[in-house]
């Protein structure tokens, strides 16, 4: 019998979220990996929505997941655009070099 063990599914999405989070913290080289981590984070959230919509038998969660996917695509497009402009300006996309925020 197919037994919906919510805990296992949630653990999966949660670990995915933390993998992406640590990708943000630990990544010092590449700005693209940062964008990828953000994408992965959004995906894990999406998975969360989908699992809950299946578990609660509610279609709203899956619709929400679709909307998030759209927004994520738009966001990554904007992010890539900024990245390209930044590379033209500075000649590098290493995160270590980005310290303009230092006061």
């Amino acid at each position, binding site marked *: 019998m197919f037994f919906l063990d919510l805990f296992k599914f949630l653990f999966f999405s949660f670990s995915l979220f933390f993998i992406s*989070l640590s990708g*943000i*913290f*630990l*990544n*010092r080289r590449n700005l693209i990996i940062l964008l990828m981590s953000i994408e992965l984070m959004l995906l894990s959230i999406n998975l969360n929505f989908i699992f809950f919509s299946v578990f609660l038998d509610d279609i709203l969660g899956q619709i929400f997941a679709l909307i998030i996917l759209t927004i994520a695509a738009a966001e990554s497009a904007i992010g890539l655009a900024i990245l390209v402009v930044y590379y033209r300006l500075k000649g590098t996309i290493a*995160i*270590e070099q*980005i*310290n*303009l*925020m*230092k*006061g």
Partner: protein
Amino acid sequence: MFLVFILLPFVNFVCLSFFGRFLSPKGSIIFCLTNIFFSLVISFVCLFEVAFCRAPCFFKLANWVDCELLDASWGGCFDSLSTIMCSMVLTISFFVHVYSISYMSHDPHQSRFMSYLSLFTFFMLMLVVADNFIQLFFGWEGVGLCSYLLINFWFTRLQANKAAIKAMIINRVGDLGLALAICILFNLFKTVDFSVIFSISYLFSNFYLDFLGFNLLLLDVICCLLFIGSIGKSAQLGLHTWLPDAMEGPTPVSALIHAATMVTAGVFIIIRCSPLFEISYFTLNFISFWGALTALISATIGLVQNDLKKVIAYSTCSQLGYMIFACGLSNYNVSLFHLVNHAYFKALLFLSAGSIIHALNDEQDMRKMGGLLQVLPFTYMMIFIGSLSLMGFPFLTGFYSKDLILETAFAKYCLIGHFSFWLGLLSATFTAFYSFRLIFLTFLNNPNGFKVHFVHVHDAPLLMTFVLSCLCCFSIFLGFVLKDFFVGVGNSAWNNSIFFDSQSLSLIDAEFIPLLVKLLPFCCSLLGSLICMFLFLFFKKRVNLLFTFLFFYIFLSKKWFFDKLQNDFIGSFFLKFGYGISFKRIDKGFLEILGPKGIIFLFSNSSKQVSMLHSGILNQYTFLIFFSIFCFIATTFKLIFITDTYLMLLYILTIVISNGFNFRLK
């Protein structure tokens, strides 16, 4: 009228010290003398009104400290005791003012000198007429200050600086006692007013104080502390070392402050507080014991001193001892009688000594004098009369009070009375000895000084002569004149200004002691002077005699090693304690770290650490943001259980302080 004579010396001080240079020396002298003279005349009018007509006057002038119960005010308590003291102080002060015109005539800072003298007179009068302890303390500290200023008058002399600082510091010890006594008095009586405290003091005679496991009678403690005050000011044993050193000051100062008036403040405070002292039997016994000891020990030191003024200074110590033990035996009026008499003949002695020093170009060492009888006959006369009066030669001023002190001490018929009597008798012998030694070495010996001194020598100028002869008259006649006023049986001149225990009848008992005992003081003085004459006439060449008693001689000439004791043990200990512990550990240590320096370090350190977080590195920022969100969520959902708020605060504080103190003091 009462106010005028107190304030005139102060007016003197202000005018002379601020405008003295505009007045010219001569103008300032005239101004100063006029004021002091009027002050003197008015004080005698007051004396007549208060003591003779028995109309005491009490007034409150203005509030000084008005805080809850503490009601110290500027007031005046003009009863017999204070007016007698006032007129005595002003008489001596007037004579010393006149004397110093001549004595300090060569000094460019004469008006400053006069202004200090006047300031001293003002403070002394404030002390004497005070009607509460705070005002008395004001006067007490003021005279201490003036003593410092006047000892240090020739401030370029190193010895004078040292003596002045010594006087100041040793007096602080006594002042601490007085201040503590005032604090305890205020705590007990909730007032510092004399009239209130003295009238209800009997009700507090069974109050006890638990201190370090000792159960002490509270009034005993108060009186002992007051007595510590008078030990300091009146140069009693233990704190007496400042008085001989104070002789570094100009001679008129020694006469006014360190012989006649200021040093008697300690005796005065005991007489003033007689209602307190009469209840405390322990303190009375202690006072008479200590006074008798002082009288003897300082007389023995005086035997071998070579400095002309130091001999007289030790004799002052000794006479103060007499006054103190008379107080301790409850003979307050006899003590005051001796105080007044002593003021006159001691002023005479000092001023004559000043005349000698003046004549010999500031030479004070008696070993370099001698043979002055031919050149200074007038001064010789004065010193001789003063010394006879000091020794208690019959029918001179000193006789009436000094003999009476000894007689009343004998007539107490108790252990401490006899102790004081015999010690007093012994010191009377020594007094005669050193007085005659002084006369011999200075006047009768072969001349030992430099020829230059003897060529230019001159007897006292006119003004000095005037002052000396006036004081000489006082030294001869005053005792006889004032005898009945001070110690007459049954007279009511005291008018309750001194408290007499109804049990105390030693004045009457003194009339019935054996004739032999009555004659004994005179015989002892005679014996002392005869021994002195004998030694100096027949054994002058026998220096070997001195060496047989070498140990005693050194012991006495080193002043019983009091100075060494103070310097080596007490002084150095407190110096080390003061630098090592109270300065380095407490002032620059604990207080600095907990106070300004610690706070500055705490904030600068923690702000440095906070600003280190501001690194500009992106992933650190994101980490911090996520971490703080996590912490926030964790605490709001109580994932971390810090239940006790105080525990959390303590935790934060430990972190902060451990960061803050992580520094080294430069």
